[in-house]
């Protein structure tokens, strides 16, 4: 297996594509994963990449660009970036479907298409990688589980734009759109190491969901959700209680739901409040159920800066003993990225130092899908995942 990462910083699609094409000479990938600033034209990227590569392609827009690190270059906001897996002994397939009225069924159809295209469609994939439109991720994960069961690890992220205005895009080698479920099945020739983590710490403050509807949190502890939340985070969102975008203010104080493994190890599935409506209700980036107990979680900028390296280390440790990763594929929560946006250069430098010469590629997303310690695939927020390929 061989991994290459290439990128461009040009902010017009033809120039970015031209730069990228100049860098992929002689590379014959088995799978291409693309990430791009949503100001670029996904449709053009899809058709041009399809003309160059004779392999499955999956991609998504990434908040303000993508992170790339190679032996000679590092960029925290590449306008267009590709993660190229060259693995002739592995099998890869990509499928897509419009989200439509029934996300679960669309997810099943997209996954069926990917399985069929892989040439090993009857076998359990090592990994399912997805790029999804935000909004119905839980149903999409259910759809995947309906096809291949719940034990195949699903990783990926929800497409992001630059200002949460809904301009996100997804693409495959034969499709591009703003509301597409794109999914890849991976049967690599060597087993990858995978890590998915929040890295946030629970506080002693807990809350009960007393009224909610899907991703809309109406009341907490029988009090209007925004007011109760503002109270426990000490007035951080007071100016927005009658409505507004609070995404950047809440990154360090998300809600967490406790997940306990059979061995008693505790982990937390995070939900990120992104806005308040006129009724003082909180909207989240993930679904929540009435009666659930939420922990107020806390994070720090310092921790967000360190987490990428930590997650890579965890993934790498799961590779066979002595194996050096050939490349790292990451999902990094866009909310986390925006919180440390001014200090991304520090994170970039630390990543370069710790992982000398290993190509790294990260997509900034508005929601993350991954496999928790208890083996279950879930959709969460403010998460970081890393897949280390050997």
């Amino acid at each position, binding site marked *: 297996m061989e991994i290459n990462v290439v990128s461009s910083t040009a902010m017009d699609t033809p120039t970015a594509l031209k730069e990228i094409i100049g860098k992929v000479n002689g590379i014959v990938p088995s799978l291409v994963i693309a990430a791009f600033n949503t100001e670029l034209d996904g449709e053009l990227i899809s058709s041009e990449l399809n003309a160059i590569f004779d392999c499955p392609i999956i991609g998504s827009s990434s908040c303000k660009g993508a992170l790339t690190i190679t032996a000679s270059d590092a960029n925290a906001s590449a306008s267009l970036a590709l993660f190229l897996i060259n693995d002739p002994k592995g099998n890869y397939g990509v499928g897509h479907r419009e989200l439509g009225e029934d996300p679960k069924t669309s997810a099943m159809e997209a996954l069926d298409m990917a399985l069929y295209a892989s040439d*090993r*469609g*009857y*076998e*359990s*994939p*090592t990994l399912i990688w997805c790029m999804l439109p935000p909004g119905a991720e839980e149903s999409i994960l259910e759809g995947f*589980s309906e*096809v*291949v*069961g*719940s*034990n*195949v*690890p699903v990783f990926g992220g929800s497409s992001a734009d630059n200002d949460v205005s809904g301009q996100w895009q997804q693409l495959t080698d034969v499709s591009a759109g703003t509301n597409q479920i794109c999914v890849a099945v991976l049967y690599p020739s060597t*087993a990858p190491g995978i*890590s998915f*983590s929040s*890295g*946030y*710490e629970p506080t002693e403050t807990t809350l009960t969901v007393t009224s909610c509807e899907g991703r809309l949190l109406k009341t907490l502890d029988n009090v209007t959700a925004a007011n109760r939340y503002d109270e426990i985070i000490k007035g951080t969102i007071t100016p927005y209680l009658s409505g507004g975008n609070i995404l950047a203010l809440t990154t360090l104080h998300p809600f967490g739901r406790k997940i306990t*493994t059979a*061995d008693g*190890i505790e*982990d937390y599935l995070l939900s990120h409040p992104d806005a308040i409506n006129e009724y003082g209700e909180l909207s989240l980036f993930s679904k929540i159920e009435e009666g659930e107990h939420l922990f107020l979680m806390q*994070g*720090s900028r*310092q*921790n967000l800066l*360190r*987490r990428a390296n*930590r*997650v890579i*280390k*965890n993934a790498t*440790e*799961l590779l066979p003993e002595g194996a050096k990763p050939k490349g790292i594929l990451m999902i990094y929560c866009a909310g986390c990225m925006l919180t440390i946006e001014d200090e991304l250069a520090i994170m970039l430098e630390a990543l370069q130092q710790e992982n000398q010469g290993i190509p790294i590629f990260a997509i900034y997303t508005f929601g993350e899908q991954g496999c928790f*310690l208890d083996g279950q695939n879930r959709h969460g927020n403010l998460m970081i995942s890393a897949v280390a390929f050997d």
Partner: protein
Amino acid sequence: MANHPEDLLESLNSAYRLREQAELERKENEVLLSGIRALLETDSQQDIYAKMFEILGQFIPHEQAFVLEQDSPGQMICTTSTNSVLENTHWDVDPVFKRAVLGQPCAVYSIARQPAWTHHIKLMKPAMASALYCPFSGPDVDAILVFCHHEKGFYVQTHVHMAERYREFTQQTLLSVNAKLQALESQQLKLEKERAEQSLIQSEKMASLGLLAAGVAHEINNPIGYVTSNINYLSENLSNLQAMKAQLEDVIAASRAFPDNPLTETIENAAKWMSQSSINETCEDIADLVRDCDQGLTRIKSIVNELRNFARADDDSFEDLDINDCVSSTIRLVSNELKYHCDLIVDLGETASVNANSGKINQVLTNLLVNAGHAIENKGNITVSTGQDQHPDLGNCTWFAVEDNGCGISPENLSRIFEPFYTSKEVGKGTGLGLAISYSIIEKLGGKLEVKSTLNKGTKFTAFIPTIMQNAK
């Protein structure tokens, strides 16, 4: 770094995953050791399977399990099962089973989707949803252990890796243990002797055939020579006889003009005898018979020539050959026939020159490649490789090999494939001479054509030819 509470949580999570991995490995190692012990202690196939299910079940949970063994090209048979209804059922070797037969464990998330299960899924009571296929090679057995679970997608890559480690470990251990046992009991020597005898018998068979052909050709050639010569003489002189007959008829006619001639009576007696003996018809019949004989002789000569060609492969001109050139040129010729259903993988190594006839080597290569193509029913790989190595009987050799992952050859057929006129192909599709001639060509170069095959797994033919240095010695 670990001073931060968040980092402590991360470390805890990481430690949890690592502990899980270590625990899994510990379990695996225990199972591997007990598995090997069981393999070495069992003395019957059924006993081995029973122990394998018991041992593997410790780390591969299952609700039903069964064994598929090779049966015939494209088919396997269930020989042992925890569900007796499955016993003796036949299974198609579809692409997933094919991967397992070739040594790659496979996890199938939904058996209802896999074509090979179409006729069997209804037999699974209680209903099963997913399966894990573990290739298993034990003493004298090449099988697939199938584990089933009611939960869809129950088996994942973790199980595949466990099964793979188990297969590799048991196979390697068994190989080394077997080798030691064989050395102890001189089994190896016995096997070598048997192999040598087999090879000798085969050589003798081919040599006898060559000798027979040459002898027959020689023996027939001599009588053909004088029969041809005589027929030619008859053919040339038949016209004289006919001329003489015409002259006699003239004499008879002339004598009748002079009835007082004292010879008239004698001449009339001769004319009467000629008429009674149908001399005219006899002359015409002789002309027809001579023509038929001539045609027959031409056919006999052609057959004798073919026999002589078969017997004297060494009559052709020899040259210093680079086998890699032969492979490249043959592939150019046959790739068209193979490209639609085979992926041709060419792995040319370093080779020393051999003294041979390029046409004959190409003939062997073509024959092996076409046979490999015929062995692959749907889609498969053919690997052509070359190299240089020490052969235990021939010394330093250049070799070329043609390997396919097709239907394979059953053990009972394998011992006969080099026999002339033996073919497993449909009537009219094979003469049964291709491999016999290939064998003869390589043998006449002082080399050996060897074959290894496993049913449904594939076949590998390797031709060893002594290098020029070796020939010089």
